[in-house]
C-alpha cells in the first residue's frame, strides 16, 4: 500500500533506492527528486549505473531496497496492468533510437497511437505529421530506419516518444555518437519539447558541457552513489570543493577516478619471474 504522496512538485522520486544486478549492487541508497516541468540531468562516467537508474524509473527493474515513486505511485505496488497504464504517460528515448526496423518512420511514430487508441486513421496521420514536423522529419516519413543517419533516427525516435503526449520523458544517452550539428539539434529539441509540451524530462548523459546548457537540475553519480546534486550554479560551485566533481566536469584523466585499472605494482609484474 503506497502512502499518499504530497504534490510538492516532484514528478519522480527515489527514496533510498538500491539496485542489485548479477549479485553486485549497482545503485546504492539513492535519494532523488525530479521536479515537475523541468529538465533533470543525471550524469556520471560510463558504468556507474545511469542506464540502470532509467530502468528503475520505467519500472523495467525493481529496486532491491527503497522505493520508486512516479507521479505519486509506488512502482512496486503496481501490477503489470497498472505499470502499463502508467507507461502510457511516459516516453523514452533509447540510446540508439530503437526504431522498429520493419516499419517506416511514419509507422514507427504512429505505433503507440495505433496500439493504444482507436483514433481514425486520418487523425493518426495528422498527429504523426505534426510530431514529425516538430522534429523536422516530415519529409522523411516514408523512409525506413536503415535509411536514416544516427541523428535522424534519434529525432524520429523522439517524435515517437512524445506522440502520446506523455507527462514524463526519459532520455538514455541522447547525444552519444552524434556529430556536433545533430547534437545541437537534439539538445534544442529536448529543451523546446520540454517547454512547449509541458513535459518533465530526465536525461541520462555523460556529455557534461552540453547538459550544463539545457538542464535545470543536476545529479552526479559515481560508483552507484550520488556524489553531488543541485542547480547549475551550485554544481559549478561544488567543483571547487570536490575533487571528484572537478575531475568529471573538467574531464581530467587522473584523479579520484584513477587512470589505471586496479593492478598489482608494475615492479612485481615485470620482475616476478626473476624473483622466483
Amino acid at each position, binding site marked *: 500500500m503506497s502512502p499518499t504522496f504530497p504534490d510538492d512538485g516532484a514528478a519522480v522520486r527515489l527514496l533510498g533506492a538500491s539496485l542489485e544486478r548479477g549479485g553486485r549492487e549497482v545503485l546504492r541508497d539513492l535519494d532523488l527528486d525530479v521536479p515537475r516541468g523541468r529538465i533533470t540531468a543525471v550524469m556520471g562516467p560510463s558504468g556507474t549505473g545511469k542506464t540502470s537508474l532509467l530502468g528503475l524509473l*520505467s519500472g*523495467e527493474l525493481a529496486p532491491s531496497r527503497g522505493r520508486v515513486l512516479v507521479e505519486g505511485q509506488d512502482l512496486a505496488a503496481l501490477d503489470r496492468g497498472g*505499470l*502499463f*497504464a502508467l*507507461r*502510457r504517460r*511516459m*516516453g*523514452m528515448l*533509447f*540510446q*540508439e533510437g*530503437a*526504431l*522498429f*526496423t520493419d516499419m517506416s518512420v511514419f509507422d514507427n511514430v504512429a*505505433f*503507440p497511437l495505433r*496500439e*493504444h487508441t482507436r483514433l481514425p486513421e486520418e487523425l493518426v496521420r495528422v498527429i504523426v505529421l505534426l510530431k514529425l514536423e516538430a522534429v523536422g522529419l516530415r519529409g522523411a516519413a516514408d523512409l525506413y530506419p536503415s535509411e536514416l543517419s544516427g541523428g535522424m533516427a534519434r529525432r524520429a*525516435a523522439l517524435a515517437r516518444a512524445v506522440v502520446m503526449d506523455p507527462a514524463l520523458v526519459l532520455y538514455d544517452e541522447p547525444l552519444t555518437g552524434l556529430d556536433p550539428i545533430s547534437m545541437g539539434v537534439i539538445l534544442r529539441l529536448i529543451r523546446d519539447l520540454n517547454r512547449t509540451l509541458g513535459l518533465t524530462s530526465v536525461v541520462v548523459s555523460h556529455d557534461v558541457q552540453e547538459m550544463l546548457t539545457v538542464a535545470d537540475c543536476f545529479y552526479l553519480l559515481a560508483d552507484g552513489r550520488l556524489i553531488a546534486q543541485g542547480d547549475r550554479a551550485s554544481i559549478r560551485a561544488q567543483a571547487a570543493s570536490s575533487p571528484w566533481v572537478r575531475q568529471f566536469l573538467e574531464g581530467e584523466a587522473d584523479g579520484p577516478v584513477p587512470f589505471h585499472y586496479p593492478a598489482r605494482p608494475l615492479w612485481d609484474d615485470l620482475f616476478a619471474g626473476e624473483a622466483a
Partner: protein
Amino acid sequence: MKTTLSQIGSSPFQAVSTLGAVGLFFVRILGAIPHVLARPRALVEQIFVVGAVSMSLILVGGLFVGMVMGLQFYTALARFGATSALGGLVALALLRELSPVVTALLYAGRAGTSLASELGLMRATEQFKAMEVMAVDPVRRVVAPRFLAGVLSVPLLTALFSAVGILGGYLIGVRLMGLDSGVFWTNLRESVRFRQDFLNGEIKALIFGILCTLVALYEGYHSDPTAEGLGRATTRSVVIASLAVLSCDYLMTAFLYR
C-alpha cells in the same frame, strides 16, 4: 568436493530450468493467440514472410527427394520384378516420414534462422525494451503472430513437399524408366490410406512446426543483446530444432504407427 558435486548437478539442473523457461514462454504465446486472431492482417503478413519464403526451397527439395527415391526404389524393386509397387512405396515413404522431417529441417534452416535473427536483432537494438516502455507486450505483438504463422505453414509446406515428391518419383519411374503410368497411380492409390498415412504425417508436421518455430522464437527473443549473441541464437535455433525434430520423429512414429 562440494564444487565437484555442484558441477555435476548444475548441467541437468540447467537443462531442466531451460525446459521450464521454454514451457513458460510457450504458455505466454498461447495466451496471446486470441489477440493474434483479432488482427488477421498481421497474421497473413507473417504467413507470407515465414511460409512463402520457404516455398521455393520446399519445391526444389521435394522434387529431388522424390526423384532420388524413384531411382533407388526402381532399381531395387527391379531385381525382384516388383517395380509395380513403386508408386505406393514412394508415396508412403514421403507421406509418413520424409515429407514431415525434411520439410521441418528445411523450414528450420530457412524460416527458423530468419525468425531467430530477426528477433535477436530486435533484442540487440532494444526494440523489445522500447515496446515494453510503450506499454505494448512484445510477445503479443511480435512473437505470437510469428508463432502461429509458422505452425500453420509447416503442415501446408509438408503437403506441398509430398505432392512434388510424388511427381518426382513419377517422372523417374514412369517417364525415365518406362513404368506404366496406370500401374504407378493405381498402386499409389491402393497403398495410401488417407487417415493413417496422410493425416498422421500432417500431425507430425504440425508438431514439428510448433517445435521449430518455438525454438527459433525462444532463442531469438532471449538472445544476448550483442552481435555475438545474435549469431549464437541463429546457430542454436537450427541445431536445437533439428535435433528436436529428429528425436521427436522416432517417438511419434512409434506412437502413430503402432
